[in-house]
């Protein structure tokens, strides 16, 4: 069991008030998580003690900075059970990880007419890179439909697979519906059809135990900032044989073995994909974040979130005029997207903010999914390891206030 009060004490931001007398009720971790002191201090110490550029110097600081950067990679690899740290490529975020696959692997392997399967519940970051490739290359896109309940239609997926797709790229957990998709099964079926798989794990790695080998994922993308780490850094995991065969994504320093005026030889993995001075302090923070989460235990975190989510769905369902989106609690992570009859989601969010309650309003970078449900926008409350049932109660009280104001 997670000791949520102890966890909250690890996060300095919960000591602040949004205005005098109003504590912060942070229900927007799906957008970005808050950061524990361990992460803030690790980055702070790096800048205070060890700051230098990596892979370039022989002096003490350069050695230390390089070691810290690489140690963090090892921690991240272990966190998702990657066979080797060389299969963890640092990127800016999930979006860049997906773009890396789209620009490098896909441009080397896909031609006009090749089919890429996505789903209707994708974030824009797993739609637009493929749309760009569609207009550039003439690849074809098709989508696994989302059922009314908010689950992927796996029967429809099986029919799509009959068309021999080259790639299946899908979200492990929807940032709107909260749906946790059966990733292992989706991947197994894709492999049977001869397709490569890319998992958008931006929402799953922070909240669930994700094991890339158990999933048999070919590529898996995630961001540090949604899992207690800093912004500006993310990772792409890839299978060794795929990464080795891929051309570089960006050119520059660090990604080369040798450069002449008219030619270069690329570096080995993972450096081949890490051009230029990377986010070094952020890598240290990323490493501290996975250490923090591992110490608490991902199973304990997931079960705490499940309890809070179940409670939140129950309480929200009671409120007349509230309509919830997404499947029942057993199929979903800590996300509750909802609308309130007669009130625009922006107004809901704004009025909740007056009581220090942070929720997001909008289409959450999943416009096609909102269109499917006939909505311009929803309000979204999301839960992480530091949220409590009391905060859910404050949310529900806040929604009653909104109703009163617009009543």
């Amino acid at each position, binding site marked *: 069991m997670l000791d949520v009060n102890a966890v909250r004490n690890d996060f300095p931001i919960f000591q602040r008030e949004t205005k005098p007398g109003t504590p912060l009720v942070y229900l927007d971790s799906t957008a970005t998580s808050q950061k524990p002191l361990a992460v803030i201090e690790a980055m702070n110490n790096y800048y205070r003690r060890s700051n230098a550029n990596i892979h370039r110097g022989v002096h003490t600081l350069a050695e230390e900075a390089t070691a810290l950067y690489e140690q963090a990679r090892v921690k991240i690899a272990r966190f998702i059970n990657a066979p080797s740290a060389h299969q963890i490529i640092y990127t800016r975020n999930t979006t860049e990880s997906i773009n890396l696959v789209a620009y490098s692997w896909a441009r080397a392997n896909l031609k006009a007419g090749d089919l890429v399967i996505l789903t209707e519940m994708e974030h824009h970051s797993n739609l637009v890179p493929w749309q760009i490739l569609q207009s550039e290359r003439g690849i074809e896109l098709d989508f696994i439909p989302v059922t009314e309940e908010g689950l992927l239609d796996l029967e429809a997926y099986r029919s799509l697979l009959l068309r021999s797709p080259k790639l299946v790229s899908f979200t492990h957990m929807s940032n709107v519906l909260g749906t946790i998709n059966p990733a292992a099964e989706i991947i197994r079926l894709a492999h049977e059809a001869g397709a490569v798989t890319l998992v958008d794990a931006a929402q799953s790695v922070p909240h669930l135990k994700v094991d890339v080998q158990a999933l048999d994922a070919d590529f898996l993308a995630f961001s540090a900032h949604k899992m207690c780490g800093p912004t500006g850094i993310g990772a792409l995991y890839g299978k060794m044989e795929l990464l080795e065969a891929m051309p570089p994504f960006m050119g520059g320093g660090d990604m080369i073995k040798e450069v002449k005026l008219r030619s270069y030889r690329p570096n080995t993995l993972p450096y081949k994909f890490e051009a230029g001075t990377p986010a070094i302090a952020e890598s240290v923070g990323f490493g501290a974040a996975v250490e923090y989460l591992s110490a608490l235990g991902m199973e304990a975190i997931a079960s705490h979130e499940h309890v809070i989510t179940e409670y939140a769905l129950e309480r929200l369902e009671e409120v007349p005029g509230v309509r919830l989106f997404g499947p029942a609690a057993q199929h979903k992570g800590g996300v509750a997207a909802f609308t309130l009859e007669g009130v625009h989601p*922006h*107004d809901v969010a*704004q009025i909740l903010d007056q009581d220090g309650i942070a929720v997001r309003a*909008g*289409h959450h970078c999943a416009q096609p999914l*909102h269109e499917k449900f006939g909505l*311009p926008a929803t309000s979204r409350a999301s839960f992480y390891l530091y949220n409590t049932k009391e905060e859910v109660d404050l949310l529900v009280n806040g929604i009653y206030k909104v109703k009163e104001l617009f009543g």
Partner: protein
Amino acid sequence: MDDLYREVIIEHYKNPGYRGHLDPHDIQFADSNPLCGDHIEVTLRTDDQGHVAEARFDGHGCAISQASADLLMESIIGKPVEDVKKLSKQDVLDMLGIDLGPVRLKCALLSLKVLKAGVYGLGEASDSLVE
């Protein structure tokens, strides 16, 4: 409860006086705020003297965007079109009587942006119209 949701805003949101679509019309324009999905269409009829004879807005969105559209329509009826061209961001904020952060400002100014793109006869609405 708070300044942002002054009674006038809630009232204009819930009971708008100028919601609708004029057919026929002399001026029509529509645009959306991609961030929130707020959508506003404005239709105007003008008279021989170049004044706004009738004005209506249609669309959907948050209370701020819809109330400001209603207030804006109310304020321009009877005014010369040339004066409508000169309306500024501050004029809308004065009507609403609230201070807005950068995100909600876009909601409040969508109707002005649409209106000005319409009266200037532009192909596309630009944020520079409401700066």
